[in-house]
């Protein structure tokens, strides 16, 4: 998995020369970022993480980066960013205290140490988790569980109304349809002739044809009466019994009794 970058003269057993931390024998692919590298360097100090010397750690990291550069190794940018930040931290730690700087270099060092501790803790927790008695490796569930059956009873929803409405629908759709023309209220031409000829005698002045129509709430009948009365008026005009006049398109149709 870990591929050694350094091959040849230096035989490198692991990622880090444990015997001599100063000898940086490193496989870069094996590191999970600068924090991981720092943690490994810190653990090489072989003290509790809370007791590590940050200055020493910083120096080791910077040495590593320097060494990598001299070997013309391409370091990921975040390693260099960390190096820059550590250089800055180092200078702050070494310089006389400047109360203006916030957070103080000591606090910055503390935070770095906290982060290393936290990463270390998570790493250990991960290992402890993986080492637990795990299902399928150490502990087993029942091998041939019959399984609990959940029977899905399909219930079909259809109520009585659906049923008879469907039958009505089928019948309405498929039975021969009997068309019945509804009896409509109409005024026949005869009736209109009678009515108009009876009324025309009183129409000395031009009178709207509507005045000759019977009053009705049924608009269909009204239309029929209008049509029939118009035909009756034409007939009576032909007989010379009345005059018809219309002043323009759609203007009222006026009737007048013709004096003989």
């Amino acid at each position, binding site marked *: 998995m870990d591929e050694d970058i350094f091959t040849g003269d230096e035989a490198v057993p692991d990622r880090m020369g444990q015997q001599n931390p100063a000898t940086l024998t490193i496989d870069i692919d094996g590191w999970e970022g600068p924090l991981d590298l720092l943690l490994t360097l810190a653990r090489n100090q072989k003290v509790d993480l809370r007791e590590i010397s940050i200055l020493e750690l910083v120096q080791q990291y910077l040495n590593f980066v320097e060494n990598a550069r001299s070997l013309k190794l391409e370091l990921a940018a975040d390693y260099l960013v960390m190096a820059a930040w550590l250089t800055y931290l180092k200078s702050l730690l070494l310089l006389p205290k400047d109360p203006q700087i916030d957070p103080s270099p000591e606090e910055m060092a503390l935070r770095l140490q906290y982060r290393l501790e936290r990463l270390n803790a998570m790493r250990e927790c991960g290992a402890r988790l993986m080492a637990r008695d795990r299902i399928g490796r150490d502990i*087993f*569930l*029942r*091998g*041939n569980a*019959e399984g*609990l*059956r*959940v*029977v*899905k*009873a*399909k*219930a*079909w*929803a*259809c*109520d*009585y109304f*659906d*049923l*008879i*409405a*469907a*039958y*009505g*629908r*089928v*019948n*309405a*759709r*498929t039975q021969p*349809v009997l068309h019945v023309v509804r009896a409509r209220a109409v005024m026949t031409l005869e009736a209109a002739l009678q009515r108009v000829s009876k009324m025309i005698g009183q129409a000395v002045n031009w009178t*709207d044809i*509507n005045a000759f129509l019977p009053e009705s709430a049924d*608009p*269909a009948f*009204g*239309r029929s009466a209008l049509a029939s009365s118009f035909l009756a008026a034409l007939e009576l005009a032909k007989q010379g019994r009345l005059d018809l006049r219309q002043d323009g398109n*759609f*203007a*009222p149709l006026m009737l007048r009794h013709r004096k003989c």
Partner: protein
Amino acid sequence: MLTAHDPGLRLVEAALFASETPLSIDQIRAHVGDAVDVSAALAALTDHYAGRGIELVRRGKSWHFQTAPDLAHLLRRERDELRKLSRAAVETLAIIAYHEPVSRSEIEAIRGVQISKGTLDVLMEAGWVKPAGRREVPGRPLIYATTPNFLTHFGLVSRRDLPGMQDLKAAGLLDPIDNAMDAADFVADENSENIDGDVEFSDSNA
């Protein structure tokens, strides 16, 4: 007799529990080692589990745990899944109910539309329709009728309770076409009223 906490008995118990297949005595021994008296453990376990929710049983030469057979039906959990019948299915059901026994082609003749095989299957699955013999005509087609379950579901004492054509007509269930005509009338009226209105309007102007 081995006690429940005997190490060998515990191992046999665990091995049988975890195994995906029934195990023979030799197979068990391969798991738990030669030091364990497998037969004695099996006997003790069979005794122990007798009458519990689980039992240890032997099938041929192999042993396995299973849930007690008398409980199986109790552990089944029913979950109703209500599904709406398709329009085709409801219509088919209605035709069968009114005309039974009917063959598929008769149903199609009444509906005026072909029915898919699934439609009758659904009705039979629902328990409302069953095949009722064959019609003695060429091709001897299957004929279908409703079941007692159909009457129960729809709250009918007998098929005679189904509303007749007159009832359907009275309920307005037979005249969707008349309804369509009324709708047409209504539209025409709207138009004519407008025309009338125009006439009246010019009237008042005159």
